[in-house]
């Protein structure tokens, strides 16, 4: 199935933490959705035109259902939070390249999710487990509202870090690595830029492959507008300059490829 703009139906939605919403969408796009990919969700309000990129939290391929967990970050996502079961909504997908499951083959994968970067770790953990892995998952939260923790525990051992120390280890995902004495053979991560930068440095130091899911303001979502680029270490094959398109060449990049 190629990329398409399609009408999905909201199956259910609930608030799972302050400003964090958990929505299941009925859509055939689910059939080819993989961990680390994302969809564009269109606001219904005509004043807000662009699709909001939201990562896939779970893909129920057989059931034709996609789960997205997102934070209210503006008026678009605020509108999404008001959507009710049965409503039809417009989405664009499936977009981007996901995490390379095969890269974890036979290796101890540590998944690191920070804040609203936690949701894609769920589908990723599920796929890694299905492929025979036993992923370790580190979820870094601002505070003690440990959304998706129970879901993640189905697929691997979950460690928690909170910035305020109100649950798990006080600190970030790398504090957990250190304090729990964990060792990774491959890292897959999604979260805020300072976290990803730290993971890139950590991977370089330990000589571990680290796959990072990047974020940037997007417009088209399909690689045409060149809005959402990230700097690359080498000249990119498509752009012929040191810029790759996060929406199309990413959002997942091996840490050494990107100059973040």
């Amino acid at each position: 199935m190629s990329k398409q703009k399609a009408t999905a139906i909201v199956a259910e939605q609930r608030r799972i933490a302050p400003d964090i919403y958990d929505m299941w969408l009925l859509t055939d796009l689910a059939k080819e959705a993989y961990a680390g990919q994302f969809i564009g969700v269109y606001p219904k309000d005509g004043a807000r035109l662009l699709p909001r990129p939201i990562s896939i939290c779970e893909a129920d391929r057989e059931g034709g259902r996609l789960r997205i967990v997102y934070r209210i970050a503006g008026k678009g996502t605020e509108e999404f939070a008001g959507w009710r079961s049965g409503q039809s909504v417009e989405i664009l997908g499936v977009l981007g390249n996901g995490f390379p499951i095969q890269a974890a083959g036979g290796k101890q994968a540590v998944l690191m999710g920070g804040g609203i970067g936690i949701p894609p770790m769920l589908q990723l953990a599920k796929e890694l487990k299905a492929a025979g892995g036993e992923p370790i998952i580190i979820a870094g939260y601002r505070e003690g509202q440990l959304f998706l923790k129970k879901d993640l525990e189905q697929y691997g051992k979950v460690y928690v870090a909170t910035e305020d120390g109100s649950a798990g280890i006080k600190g970030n995902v790398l504090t957990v690595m250190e304090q729990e004495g964990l060792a990774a053979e491959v890292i897959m991560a999604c979260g805020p830029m300072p976290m990803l930068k730290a993971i890139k440095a950590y991977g370089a130091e330990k000589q571990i492959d680290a796959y990072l899911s990047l974020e940037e303001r997007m417009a088209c979502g399909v690689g045409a507008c060149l809005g959402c680029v990230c700097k690359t270490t080498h000249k990119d094959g498509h752009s012929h300059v040191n810029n790759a398109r996060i929406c199309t060449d990413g959002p997942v990049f091996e840490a050494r490829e990107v100059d973040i």
Partner: protein
Amino acid sequence: MNTKVKIAGVEFKNPVMTASGTFGSGMEYSDFVDLNRLGGVVTKGVANVPWQGNPVPRVAETYGGMLNAIGLQNPGIDVLIERDLPFLAQFDTRVIVNVCGKSVEDYLEVVERLGDTEVDMLEINVSCPNVKEGAIAFGQKADCLYDITSRIKKKAKQPVIMKLSPNVTDITEMAKAAEAAGADALSLINTLTGMKIDIHRRTFALANKTGGLSGPAIKPVAVRMVYQAAHAVKIPVIGMGGIGSAEDAIEFLLAGASAVAVGAMNFVNPYATVEVAEGIETYMRKYGIEDVAELIGGVKE
């Protein structure tokens, strides 16, 4: 029913094209639309050498529109010729290459290189507001516009479309300058220069501070300028600025545009181009219009 239009001797199967910079070189949107259904594909601006473009953030949404400051990132003319033109050659659609540069020499180099290709027309981008090195000046001063247009016309083997900036006091003065210098057609409007500030971080939403405003928000400005330009010159005008539906497109045709281009609205509806083309036919059928030419400039004075 005839939907064909002719611009500077080049026949288009319908008056619907893509606006430069919003459609890549066609490849990305070929997942969504059959390029054979389009009058023409206008490629992302290309320079003599690859351009890095601006730092991110490069895009920001605004009310009914968006700002972009891509900075004309492009892989350079070599890659366009080797990769993108052969891709587009597979389709039965006209190919217009948008040309950008930092100096007149840059433009001329690209124009010369394209002379040996099968490209149908050239569109000269003298109106990008997001490049520091003065390309926009070519599009904001009538004498500069005259100068670059006439120099390009001397070298160009294909018909030349000059793409005009709306960030001017008098669009008719610019349109006339381009016509006087030998331009074969005009396209307008490029984006309006805008700015957005994030009040919580107290930072500019775009790394470039300013960006080009596009989308339905600017359509009334675009329709006005197309009307004024089309009435000021004899060469054909290609209209653009917020077109997302056949209704929008017909508004531009009635204002005097000989063809139209879909830009930012591709991002909102990736099927927009084909829907516009089909919708124009539906409108023509509804009102018994035999030839799309009847619509061009057809608003009642």
